[in-house]
């Protein structure tokens, strides 16, 4: 059985290393819709993939992954919104963990919006 005592060791190791985690103004906010519509269409693996990647690549100073409720576009779930300071919000639709990681690499790190996965691209495709 793993013991909670291991947390004591983690705490001791991290003492003094924990910087201010307050949200800074320049942080990119990545929001995943996690209402019934999102969950039913597979938002949980998307949220996990994004937050794991941000942690593994030590990006949590730059990128903050959070969850939200339903924004009323249930047919397009899983939805990931990217809010970058000083830029227009980008809405990615019908996401999968793979698409989300591609978006992380191209957009969040590379600064290049992955247009083909955005809401406007999908809506234009329907016209």
């Amino acid at each position: 059985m793993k013991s909670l005592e291991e947390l004591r060791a983690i705490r001791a190791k991290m003492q003094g290393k924990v910087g201010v985690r307050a949200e800074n103004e320049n942080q990119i906010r990545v929001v995943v819709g996690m209402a019934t519509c999102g969950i039913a269409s597979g938002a949980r693996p998307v949220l996990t993939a994004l937050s794991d990647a941000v942690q593994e690549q030590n990006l949590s100073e730059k990128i903050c992954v959070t969850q939200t409720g339903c924004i009323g576009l249930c047919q397009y779930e899983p939805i990931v919104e990217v809010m970058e300071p000083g830029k227009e919000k980008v809405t990615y639709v019908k996401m999968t963990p793979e698409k989300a990681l591609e978006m992380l690499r191209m957009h969040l790190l590379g600064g290049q919006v992955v247009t083909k996965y955005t809401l406007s691209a999908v809506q234009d495709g329907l016209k």
Partner: protein
Amino acid sequence: MPEIALNILDIAENSVRADASLIGITVSVQPEEDTLTVSIKDDGCGMTPEEAGKVLDPFFTTRTTRKVGLGVPFFKQAAESAGGSFQIDSEIGKGTEVTAVFRLSHIDRMPLGDISSVIHTLIVFNEPVDFRYTYRYGEKSFVLDTGEMREILGTEISFREPEVSAFIREYLETGKEETDGGTEI
């Protein structure tokens, strides 16, 4: 929804939105009684008897972004179509408890799914809320109480710190494994 675990995530998100400070989640698998029981209990704002009656209606929701509310109806249907039962008890100002019983061997019972990941997601993404998760299999049981973890960690270390987050996930996974011996549920 393809898994019981995802239903649990959805219903527990309702508790978060109801401003709960403590959410108790119990999953009890009893092969001898042929039952799988899920209970989600919160100390959130609760509902009036009228509202509690209406949540079973797929066309009722308090959201303004859409006109349907399928979370509770989905969970109820999943339990009842697997030869089980569903109950919701709520009191305004006190909280809400949702209980679903599934017949374990029923052909239409959906799999439990990745319950450890779901509990991990709930804990890590809703840090201000305390979770008390109990997993039972027969006589054996396993408990994770975020209040206890918070006491050890102090207030300044977040559950989102990679090491803490990884510990929580592993703790949940080994706890489950030791309780049910790795049985597919």
